[in-house]
């Protein structure tokens, strides 16, 4: 893990809410699907870095898929090729892709980001999978995914949620990978537990250090003596649905 300066190669809008940034990949920074970086720009009025999943990587580049929600995500969108960012990474533990079963990838909104790299990894492994991506309205970012194995749900077009798609295809013998808003993740988790299907959920929590030092990004996890708090940044961001002690 390192903290280095990296150049922005391109910034490109994906509709109104979303955009993607391509960064020069810092040497020796290799990401597995689900891992993230924590970034900061030098002129920033923010005290803390901001975590973003590495949506995909090539030899020389990493791609971030970003939703504009606040100060930093607004500023980043306005940055120009050649601008520099401080990038810390690779952070966290990504998805466990050692399974063999058919994979169901379910993502909501910008939560589809880590699923992009995951789908590419599964492609490389030749493992069977299906992507279910849900959006409120715009679904430009879905175009980054391979058209085969893809189903899209738009709340403004169809009634219901992306989890309704999951309901249709959920069956024994699959493995579920999910990332998205908390209510979606909670629903996915319950559905999987009911169906007896293993799930891996990528969580979000406010972060300060991003490396496991401050214990600020707590998520309740079951252990034999009850629940304990684990760290989203370093124990996660990916957790097994069964181990989470939500509610």
């Amino acid at each position: 893990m390192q903290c280095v300066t990296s150049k922005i190669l391109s910034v490109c809008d994906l509709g109104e809410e979303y955009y993607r940034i391509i960064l020069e990949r810092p040497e020796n920074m290799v990401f597995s699907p689900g891992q993230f970086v924590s970034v900061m720009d030098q002129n920033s009025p923010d005290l803390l870095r901001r975590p973003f999943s590495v949506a995909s990587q090539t030899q020389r580049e990493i791609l971030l898929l970003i939703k504009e929600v606040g100060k930093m995500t607004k500023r980043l969108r306005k940055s120009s090729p050649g601008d520099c960012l401080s990038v810390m990474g690779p952070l966290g533990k990504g998805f466990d892709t050692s399974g063999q079963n058919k994979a169901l990838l379910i993502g909501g909104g910008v939560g589809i980001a880590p699923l992009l790299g995951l789908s590419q990894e599964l492609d490389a492994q030749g493992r069977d999978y299906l992507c279910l991506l849900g959006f409120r309205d715009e679904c430009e970012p879905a175009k980054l995914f391979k058209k085969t194995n893809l189903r899209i749900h738009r709340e403004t077009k169809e009634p219901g949620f992306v989890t309704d798609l999951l309901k249709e295809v959920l069956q024994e013998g699959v493995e579920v990978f999910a990332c998205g808003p908390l209510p979606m993740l909670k629903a996915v988790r319950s559905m999987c537990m009911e169906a007896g299907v293993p799930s891996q959920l990528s969580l979000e929590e406010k972060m300060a250090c991003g490396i496991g030092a401050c214990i600020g990004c707590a998520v309740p996890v079951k252990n034999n003596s009850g629940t304990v708090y684990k760290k989203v940044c370093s124990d996660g961001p990916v957790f097994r649905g069964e181990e989470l002690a939500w509610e």
Partner: protein
Amino acid sequence: MGVNTLLRTTIGTLELKNPVTVASGTFGCGREFAQFFDLSILGAVSVKGITLEPRKGNPPPRLHETPMGLLNSIGLQNPGVEHFIREEIPFLRRYDTKIIANINGNTIEEYRELSSILNREDVDAIELNVSCPNVKEGGMVFGTDKEMLRRAVRAVRSVVTKCLIVKLSPNVTSIADMARICQEEGADAISLVNTFSGMAIDVQSGRPVFHLVGAGMSGPAIKPLALKKVYDVYQAVEVPILGMGGISSGDDAVEFLLAGSSAIAVGTAMFSNPLLPVEILRYLKSFTRAKKMGVEHITGLAHRGGFS
């Protein structure tokens, strides 16, 4: 780092090769930051707050960013003193840096027991934290009530033969009064400040962001306030000060020395810049060389007319 006599300093009975330390709770026990730099460059490491028994900590959210500040409500999550002794002391001892054990309790009895256990272990100093705002019992009460503070320091002093540092809360009318009590009860040094009591409210839900409502504020936002506390304490007592609160640059560190700190601790600002301790150390090297003056002479110089 070679020996640089200009950087040497002492806090009480603790001799430090340089004044750059890291603040308790912002550095874990060093493992994470060891990925970024050699911990041996540090004068000392103050470890994450330790309690007698493991502590679960507070439910999330535990963090909230404010303008140049950070609110935290960690609630002293830690695996307990046994784990610290077994796992963390041996790890930190691989580095050439002093270990400051930051201790926390709900009762005087807990403080005493914990400090007597740690006094027998291989740590260099004990930092009595009487100022954690993020627990329901104990915590900051000991740091804001004069009689409680006196009893806590007395109890711990009676069993601690190592260097005893008392970490004060800034949330008091007169921090000088609190420092005097520490001095009277035989503390070797004072560290300040711990976090300021703050809060945030979610305007959509209309409810406080944190479960315990209040949270502790740190970061550059509090620097001018923390600096004033150090200045006031330096005027009130003879015991040396380990100064902290929002330090995010070499200049900030120098300000804390000038105000009266014998050593400084870096905290929140490391979250965005993990190499900050290295940069501050480098800055202090060139600053002391340029001024031809050691850290021990710079300490408190703002009270004596400054450089001239």
